[in-house]
């Protein structure tokens, strides 16, 4: 079975999901994993899809052409075998909240710190809030720590970044519980 990564983005309006999923349904595609959201005025769809019929990516993309005419941008990438399988992340899970006066480099500076420590970001959202005069930047991310690293270790590293960027950063452990 072929797996593809499908990305669709365009000015938000009612009916985008319906149009996209109708095409997928008619082509016999399954939506395995997906996340869709409104970002600014744009609606963005990220999907991992599979197709039992083994159509080539190019052939499949052809069926999305009508969407391009509606000003939606469509990207399709054929995944290598196994590319659809989620890795088993073992380390501690934590949530990092970063917020403060908007300035260039907040995301990069925090992400660099995480990347250098082999911390895996699994979810990331940012928003610009506040007023035009006093914009506030908010970033929320979830990350898996490498084996042996504790939430306290990350807290310490983030405290240094918070001081340097003059923003507030809090780190807290997420403990998923199976009941």
């Amino acid at each position: 079975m072929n797996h593809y990564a499908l990305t669709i983005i365009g000015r938000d309006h009612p009916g985008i999901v319906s149009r996209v999923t109708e095409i997928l349904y008619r082509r016999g595609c399954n939506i395995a994993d997906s996340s869709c959201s409104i970002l600014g005025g744009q609606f963005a769809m990220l999907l991992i899809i599979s197709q039992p019929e083994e159509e080539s990516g190019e052939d499949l993309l052809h069926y999305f052409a009508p969407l391009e005419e509606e000003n939606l941008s469509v990207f399709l990438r054929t995944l290598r075998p196994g590319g659809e399988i989620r890795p088993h992340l073992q380390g501690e899970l934590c949530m990092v909240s970063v917020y403060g006066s908007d300035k260039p480099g907040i995301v990069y500076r925090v992400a660099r710190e995480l990347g250098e420590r082999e911390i895996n970001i699994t979810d990331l959202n940012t928003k610009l809030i506040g007023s035009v005069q006093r914009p506030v930047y908010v970033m929320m991310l979830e990350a898996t720590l490498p084996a042996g690293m504790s939430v306290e270790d990350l807290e310490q590293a983030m405290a240094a970044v918070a001081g340097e960027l003059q923003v507030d950063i809090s780190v807290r452990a997420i403990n998923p519980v199976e009941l």
Partner: protein
Amino acid sequence: MAVRDILLYPDPRLKMVCDPVPECQELEPLIQDLLDTMYEAGHSVGVAAPQIGVPLRVVVVDVSASKLGRKNNHGCLVMVNPEILEREGSMTMREGCMSVPDYTGNVARAEEVLVQFNDRDGTGKVIRAVGFEAVAIQHEIDHLDGYLFLDRVSSLKTDLFRRKQR
């Protein structure tokens, strides 16, 4: 007695409203099975009777061995015909469920609950549970009404629990 298999959604028995236990009904084998099943799972802190296919209002909860519940708990709780009398406060936890494997989601529940139930010996009790124990009790009692955490979730996250090898 016996470790029983946990029913997995979409088993329709997980979506049924369970019957109250009539007075004088022999429950000892069921209670022991629930406890055995909970402790055998290793990481589990609660099991409800419908999860092993018995449509009766019985749950067991024990958070005393878990990191989150160690400080505040009532030990091993056997609850027959439990009823939440009062709810207070709110807390959100990333919940998962043995009947819905490999999914977790953020669920907001009361931080504190006052629960009335009959214990293993049939004695009427009222306890005030807080924190993780309160969350576990609410999760298990939801099973008795056919609710899964998926009915309460505000956002879904995939998460694989490490399971005890059999």
